[in-house]
């Protein structure tokens, strides 16, 4: 009989635990409503397949919201940041968005981190009239323009254009494309294929790999057999660090171009010495110390880099920068609007002009919710394991 | 021999190189109790499986009521009236006693996914009559009082009875009983013997595999002895008891006196 009772007790414990958890989380929210802070929501892929995006984004937001609040908040009111995790799953993203809007009553949302997730919720801001600034790069987020949806990262197509420009300058006529089988890789692949003819460049190979693959030699062997003069890889996952290694193993000497998704010092680290000489477009953040001092972004970038690295003991990545930009665009808009009103804030965001962010200088307009041009990208390369601005 | 219900002609079943059943021919007449005996591994259960359609014979011919049923799968055999009980009891433990019997009426009812989902009136009538008929069989085996008990709560002997009730509810032409006395004591074995006779008296032919010689000798009309997949003797109990070969490979000296 003993065991029977024991089991029963444990069952009760579980029940009580579940129940109290739920109640607790409800109660928690009730209390907070009295302080009347300005609520800003954030949806990032903190866990799941894209956690390396969500993590720096969340960290950035948390850090700067604290900073702002310490400095007295906005319009005399503190900002309350509510961060939700998408777990890289579209259904969860939808839930998170609806929760932020209808339960937490946020006035604006930053995120999601990924294009797919953003596409999944793209109509929700419009439905509930809450401005949203996405940290995902895909062009389709801002094209066509949706009234309540903005984005901070540079456009994929601009990255593609920069790469193609550079290739043309180098006299490359034939390229091989590699891309990761994900929303990001897919978009980039399409952009490259679309614009390559305009630069007189032919795509002689087009291959993909899974985000969790660990060996790209089969694809690269295939490319090696073609006449490609350069490999352009479009990916955002760690797997891309394997490519330069594999290329070296195969004895391939043609240059490797990466997308802006390579913009994470960890990836360069993971490549080891095989990474030397990789060329890729990126925001200036990564190589901000090699920027000329008179560059308008230099101060912002250096500050952000310093603060982030001090606080989190971790190297800065461009993705965190996207969140930085989004947060300050919203803060600026609130200041300008003077009232905490979702529609007014939206209007002010749209009027943002000349805002110096980490990604570039933002100019939104009713026709353009991207805010950045292709000059926001700088061509970078890896020298001695460090990102530097490519000088030519 | 009048009226052969089941006829086997030169039936073989090989597993790789092993000849589990090797050219066995015999027939079972209507209303008979026929037993198959033989040492362990002689191919008795394999032969059962071949007849019931669980396994296809490698060679040979099986006829049921003058119809060729050699290659039919087991569930078809069941609907044609070949029903079996198992050596290790195989009742449906996740159902009630009544439901166990109702399953046996499966080939004699017709509700499918669609009609079940929408509960047409005819289907409801079918269900009611199913319950009525099934209770009749439970009554025959004195299990009616436990109709709503979960089947796995029955004591061993009653599970065996339930297996018979279920088999009978299938309205078999021929009942294949695989060691019905396994695990029963002498008294219970006698009950089973009486029961099998009763079943025979309702007009069902019975084919039996059994180790308990007292049971076999007591109730069989005819006995078939298998050894290494081959038939070594066939005949009445008296005949078998005196067969030298059978004594040598199977019965031993003691049985002579029994």
């Amino acid at each position, binding site marked *: 009989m003993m065991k*029977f009772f024991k089991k029963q007790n444990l069952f009760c414990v579980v029940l009580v635990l579940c129940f109290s958890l739920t109640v607790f989380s409800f109660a928690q929210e009730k209390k907070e409503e009295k302080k009347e802070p300005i609520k800003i929501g954030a949806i990032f892929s903190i866990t799941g397949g894209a956690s390396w995006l969500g993590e720096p984004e969340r960290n950035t937001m948390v850090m700067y919201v604290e900073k702002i609040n310490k400095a007295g908040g906005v319009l005399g009111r503190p900002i309350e940041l509510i961060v939700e995790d998408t777990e890289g799953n579209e259904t969860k993203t939808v839930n998170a968005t609806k929760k932020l*809007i209808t339960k937490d009553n946020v006035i604006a949302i930053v995120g999601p981190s990924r294009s797919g997730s953003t596409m999944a919720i793209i109509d929700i801001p419009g439905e509930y009239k809450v401005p949203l600034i996405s940290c995902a790069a895909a062009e389709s987020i801002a094209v066509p323009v949706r009234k309540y949806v903005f984005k901070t990262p540079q456009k994929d197509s601009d990255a593609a254009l920069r790469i193609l420009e550079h290739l043309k300058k180098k006299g490359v006529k034939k390229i091989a494309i590699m891309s990761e089988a994900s929303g990001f890789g897919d978009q980039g692949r399409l952009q490259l294929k679309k614009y390559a003819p305009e630069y007189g460049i032919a795509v002689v190979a087009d291959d993909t790999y899974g985000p969790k693959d660990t060996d790209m030699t089969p694809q690269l062997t295939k490319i090696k057999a073609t006449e490609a003069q350069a490999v352009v890889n479009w990916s955002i996952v760690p797997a891309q660090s394997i490519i330069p290694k594999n290329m070296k193993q195969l004895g391939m000497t043609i240059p490797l171009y990466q997308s802006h998704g390579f913009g994470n010092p960890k990836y360069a680290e993971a490549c080891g010495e095989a990474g030397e000489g990789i060329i890729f477009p990126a925001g200036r953040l990564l190589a901000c110390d090699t920027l000329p001092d008179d560059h308008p972004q230099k101060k912002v970038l250096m500050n952000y880099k310093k603060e982030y690295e001090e606080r989190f003991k971790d190297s800065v990545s461009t993705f965190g920068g996207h969140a930085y930009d989004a947060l300050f665009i919203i803060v600026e808009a609130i200041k300008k609007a003077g009232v905490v009103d979702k529609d007014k804030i939206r209007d002010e965001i749209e009027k943002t002009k000349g805002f110096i962010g980490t990604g570039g200088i933002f100019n939104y307009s009713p026709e353009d919710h991207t805010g950045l041009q292709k000059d926001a990208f700088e061509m970078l390369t890896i020298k001695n394991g460090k990102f530097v601005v490519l000088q030519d | 021999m009048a009226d052969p219900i089941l006829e086997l002609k030169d039936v073989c079943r090989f597993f790789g190189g092993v000849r589990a059943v090797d050219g066995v021919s015999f027939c079972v007449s209507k209303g008979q109790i026929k037993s198959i005996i033989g040492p362990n591994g002689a191919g008795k259960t394999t032969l059962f499986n071949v007849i019931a359609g669980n396994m296809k014979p490698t060679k040979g011919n099986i006829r049921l009521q003058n119809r060729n049923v050699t290659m039919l799968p087991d569930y078809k055999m069941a609907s044609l009236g070949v029903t079996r009980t198992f050596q290790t009891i195989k009742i449906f433990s996740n*159902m009630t006693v009544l439901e166990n019997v109702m399953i046996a009426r499966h080939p004699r009812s017709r509700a499918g996914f669609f009609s079940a989902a929408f509960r047409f009136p005819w289907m409801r009538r079918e269900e009611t009559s199913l319950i009525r008929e099934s209770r009749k069989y439970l009554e025959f085996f004195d299990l009616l009082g436990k109709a709503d008990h979960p089947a796995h709560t029955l004591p061993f002997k009653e599970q065996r009875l339930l297996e018979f009730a279920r088999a009978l509810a299938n309205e078999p032409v021929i009942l294949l009983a695989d060691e019905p006395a396994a695990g029963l004591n002498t008294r219970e074995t006698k009950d089973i013997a009486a029961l099998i006779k009763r079943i025979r008296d309702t007009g069902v032919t019975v084919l039996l595999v059994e180790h308990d010689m007292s049971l076999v000798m007591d109730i069989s009309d005819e006995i078939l002895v298998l050894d290494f997949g081959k038939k070594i003797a066939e005949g009445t109990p008296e005949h078998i008891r005196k067969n030298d070969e059978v004594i040598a490979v199977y019965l031993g000296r003691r049985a002579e006196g029994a």
Partner: protein
Amino acid sequence: MMKRNIYIPYAVFLMIVLLAPMFVKNPYYLGVLVQVGIFSLVTMGLSLLMGYAGQISLGHAAFFGMGAYASAILTGTCHWSPWLAMGAGMLITACVAWFVGTPSLKLKGHYLAMATLGFGLIVNIFFLAEVDLTGGPSGYTFARIPHITFIKWTIKSETSSYYFVWGILLVILLLTLHIIHSRVGRALRSIHADEEAARAMGVNTAQYKVGIFILSGIYASLAGSLYAHYIRFVAPDPFGLMESVLLVTMVIVGGMGSIWGAIAGAALLIILPEALRFFQDYNILIYGAILLFIMLFLPGGIFGGSQMLWLLIRKIPGRRQEAKDG
């Protein structure tokens, strides 16, 4: 007697479902409940397959995804009516289920698990690879999936979605309960208990197994269509292997062999992560821990557990639940 058995809980459940929106007004909570409804539909089918027929499928998210993609593509690219697309989705899924199920269900145990898992992966890779058809990894972006229209109401708001999804669920639930308590249900359970004996009773087990596989596939496909029209965006991610595993977990956590358990399991595993949002990063830990806990101490699932509790209250020394499944 049997009638009372199934209709009373059903009526109670009906009342709860109908009245729930009176207490839950927030669209977010309603949205979560809509998802509970959608997933319950899948787990109900899966529960029929697992709990009743005793077969396992680690590829059910594929059927779910096929329904969703069929709805998305047929309404978006081909401009079909959502209802027609839904039906077509179910038809396609049924055919695929038949095609896959016929050879797969001859397998047993881990081999069946592997076969269905492999099938699920292949379908997911198909969603990823056929960029021109499905939009590939970025999801279906060629057109917005339209709202569904029921008679004259457009199902757009959370409340209408709630009633729509749960309305469909209730109808299906009733049909499912009918199936369970019928000749077909008995045949399925007999397969679970002992396939050989079932065949010996004249049950065409192969046909029933494939039948129930198709049926559960259709449920999943229908749920997928509802999902597509509710979320209005489909991408391959939510139809992958982990989702299949999650679905199976829902059924087991809820308690195998009970349709109510399937609904309870879906509800728990949808609501739990939402409730755990509070814990941020820690939720994966807590989620894993809770799952482990349920499995360790309630192997019969929550429904098995609550039955045990009930038995205890009634002071009937019940048999141990776990002896039954397996």
